[in-house]
């Protein structure tokens, strides 16, 4: 899976849980904190990421994934 595919899938997951997300304005470096993601949405995004990529995530790790670029880096490193 290359970076483009990961980005596309992650955008799909985010759009599903954050319908108000403006895809054009949302860049690789837009902080996730600027989106309306409360703790409940965050846990649902986490579940989708785990089920899509087959790894387990902790709350601490999720907090470190602050942008789409960092998330893609993490997925690249951890998907076997």
């Amino acid at each position, binding site marked *: 899976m290359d970076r483009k595919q990961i980005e596309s899938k992650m955008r799909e997951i985010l759009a599903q849980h954050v319908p108000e997300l403006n895809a054009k304005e949302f860049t690789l470096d837009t902080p996730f*904190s600027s989106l309306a993601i409360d703790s409940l949405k965050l846990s649902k995004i986490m579940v989708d990421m785990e089920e899509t990529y087959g790894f387990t995530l*902790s709350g601490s790790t999720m*907090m470190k994934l602050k942008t789409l670029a960092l998330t893609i880096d993490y997925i690249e490193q951890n998907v076997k």
Partner: protein
Amino acid sequence: MNEYPQTIAWHLTALAKQDPSATAAIFPGAGVSLTYGQLNERAQTVAKALCAMGLRRGEHVAIWSPNSSHYLEVLFGCSAAGNALAAINSNCLAHELGIFLKQSDATVLFIATGHSREAEYLDAIRVVCPELPEALPGELAAKAAPRLKTVVSLGAEKIPGMLAWQEFLALGDTVADLELTARDAAITGDDILLLLFTSGTTGVSKLAMIHQSCYMTDAHYLLTSHKMTASDVICTPLPLFHAWGLIVLLTSVAAGATALIIDQFSGRNMLAAMEKYRATFVFGVPSMLVAAIAELDCCQYDISTLRGGAMAGAPCPPHLVQAVLERMGASEFCAAYGSTEAAICITGSYDDPADKRIMTVGRPLPGVNLKVIDPQTGELAPSGVQGELCINSAMNMKGYYNMPEETARTIDAEGWVHSGDLACIDKDGFCTITGRSKDIIIRGGENIAPIEIEQLLYAHSQVKDAAVVGIPSDYYGEEPVAFVILKQGSIKPLELKSYCRKHIAYQKVPVHYFLVDEFPRTGSGKVQKFKLRDLALSLIKDQL
């Protein structure tokens, strides 16, 4: 001695008479605010409706809801009617809801609707009470919760088997003011106000019985120690089912201040609300303040009105307390300590020296006695020596509901609550929490009993044995991880995680699963969890 023997409803009414137009609470997510006059009027209506339903003084009522204005109306209404409110964790799943309803003996359940998890809530109550859709309100006969007679939806929509919120309130029209006043006069600060669920080391949840005057007494001590006034705006992102969330709310009421209650938590939502409403205090568990500090790393907020507050509910890392002081500008902020069983906030003060507010949880509030004992001998530990922290005050819980043996194990004959937390107290009386003697994981301020998760894992057809431990988390303080021995074959960790997610609330679901052939054990066969904790940390390090 209890200096504040009245009920919380009595305090609310007094404030409503004094300044009815003052803002009591703001819910920024819903865009709702309540004045003291409105809150008091609505609480009285709830109380009348409970009377009209035939609830006797002392009967139990339950609420299952995220933070909302209706939560406050039900809480103060129960206080005025003399009914104890069982506050159910808003994240629980169907089978946990069933346990809570049965354990609390609640005859009425208030259930939130009109929020993002409405469908899950409605599915869950129908799983627990399949009889509900066909039942008439007041006549529910559910096998799983035999005492439950009525379910009230906290929304406008009519749902089969439930009373809609307005229908419920309309019942109160038949009760005269005088009738409620007469009932109210008989209710004292000794009546049970709250039934709060706590995790036990045995995995069976317990219901701590908190009396009316307990929280108002604690609230008065807390507002004095933080020098709050009616002009303050007190931000609390804490859930209202949590003892810490309730005490912050009641402290705000005791001060006649405005409670800024975050109803959709994120660091961004909290800071935006603090900026908009000019918050002067913030109270939370460490993970909430971690989220706020992280948000400040990327966005700017004018929270210059912020003065103080406290963090408690989980171990408070000194660097985080310092960050709140420096990055959020809350110069009077402190770490604090409390327990559901012994009033939720019993230490900490704004005027302690900064290093003490950062490095310790402070000194006990007025009326609170602390001591540290050797857990083996029960003897008083010398100053500065670690032992089990014990608490004695008029704010101690009355006991665990229907659990006299558990109560006797927690509160000794002299009235000391044995917290299960390890601590030391220095010669000046400052207390430092150093660990725990009980097998409990504290994730984001919520206590989790490992045995509950272990029992769930045992129940999986492929699992032979399971051990759950807490590992340090930058965000939540601790998070659970599971070690599993399989009977045979193989299973992916994610399958075990999905299995857990189906059966327990998300905060209890272990984040990682390690398949092992055996557990490190003591000579007597007991699992050495400290070794598993170290092993988990090394395995996670290897993974990342």
